[in-house]
């Protein structure tokens, strides 16, 4: 037998070598998994951007329609939103959440205007926009949930030993959640 011919020192070296290779393979596996998940988190974040932009566009159109009935109120609402041309490319997640809150505020404002000017409810364009906004809200909610689900997955690996060693080695930190207060979301539901 070949094993019998090998000296104990060589056997030890082989065992150490095998263990080392296994550790390297495991390290690469965890690293790849983390990178893939990070990519998914980024993709999900761009999904949030798309949904926020869609909602912003719809709300802008709705404000334009509202101007025909309540110019002053619509202009005041317009000023609430920080970015008039949508989300800048380098916006942070916190800024996006803030942007979303501003849009919630606009949506609530539109609700109040509708109560004051019931004629708006008869406007076909307004009704269609209302439908589209609701759709955009649902897309945003889905994008937010998908993002948070991916963040949960990656954070779980980052904080779990021994995968946390790999995460530290490649300087990967816990990802922030995209928070949205459900209570606030309910407030802005466009029910005319």
């Amino acid at each position, binding site marked *: 037998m070949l094993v019998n011919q090998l000296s104990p020192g060589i056997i030890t070296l082989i065992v150490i070598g095998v263990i080392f290779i296994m550790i390297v393979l495991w390290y690469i596996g965890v690293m790849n998994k983390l990178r893939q998940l990070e990519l998914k988190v980024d993709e*999900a974040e761009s999904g949030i951007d798309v949904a926020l932009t869609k909602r912003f566009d719809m709300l802008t159109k709705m404000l334009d329609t509202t101007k025909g009935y309540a110019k002053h109120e619509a202009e005041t609402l317009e000023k609430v939103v920080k970015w008039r041309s949508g989300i800048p490319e380098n916006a942070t997640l916190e800024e996006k959440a803030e942007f979303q809150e501003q849009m919630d505020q606009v949506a609530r404002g539109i609700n109040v205007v509708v109560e004051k000017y019931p004629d708006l409810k008869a406007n076909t364009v307004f009704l269609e926009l209302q*439908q589209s906004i609701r*759709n955009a809200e*649902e897309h945003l909610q*889905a994008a937010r949930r998908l993002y948070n*689900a991916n963040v949960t997955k990656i954070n779980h690996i980052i904080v779990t030993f021994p995968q946390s060693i790999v995460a530290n080695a490649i300087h990967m930190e816990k990802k922030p959640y995209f928070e949205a207060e459900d209570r606030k979301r309910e407030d802005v539901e466009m029910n005319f």
Partner: protein
Amino acid sequence: MKNEALTKFNQKKKGIEKHLIIAGAIIILAAIIFFLLYQNNLNTDMMFLPMIIGALGAIYLFVHLAKFSSLKKEFKQTFLKELFASLIPGIEYMPGSGLSSQTVYEGEFLKKADRFHSEDYLQGKIDDVDFISSDVRLEERRVRHTKNGTQVYYVPYFVGRIFRFDFHKELVGRLQVLESGSPKSRRRFKKVELESIDFNKKFRVFSEEELTAFYILTPDIMEAIFALEKRHPGNISFSFSDQQLYIGINNNKNTFELKLFKQLSEEEVEIFKHDLLVIKDVIQSLKLNNNIFKKREEE
């Protein structure tokens, strides 16, 4: 009126059941005579007698089974049709017809069968949502090799109902929510894990786009799917596309059937009603009647 009709069908059914018992008794009698003659090595010339009696019994049995089959058709055409119309105005019920195989496979959660049967077709509209449904039986061909040769037989793998509803939410790709198994399609589905651990345990979610799964399966809808599954036992599958929602319930049940030797009671009628109102339950639970899901005028 309903009670009168029930009494009428019960009387007819009892009459047929009586004849079926007689036919059964004749066949058993023939078998006993045959057995006795054979055991006691009695006059072999007399062997034809039990055979003739048995054949007469079998003919009698088939005649009355055919009568029962006609009674079932009559029951569906008159009683059930009227009952369904009173529960869902405008519903069309065609007991002899069923969904086409093409429609059934469009859901992409059932593999193609070697033997296909469908009946009890229902078509209508509830809260402006169009639906169609029918009982479906799918069987797979199997071959068994024995000493005596090759034997071909069919094994059912889906016995239940298929529903198709209008679904007008804009989707990217298709979404499948299956209680077991995986999609039967050439599409590239990804397995999606949702936030609900319970939901992930109970159902397997497949989607061409992950975002679509989160878009359709909101926490409310997940809860509704859970509740639907509890209310309608069986293996349940959902397939969402941007035009239609397909649902399959594999419960090993042939719905809307009169049963032999079981009285047609009010309770039985309630079961028929429940089986019909699954449609309404789905539309309301999954909120298919919300404006966002309805067909728009210009479409």
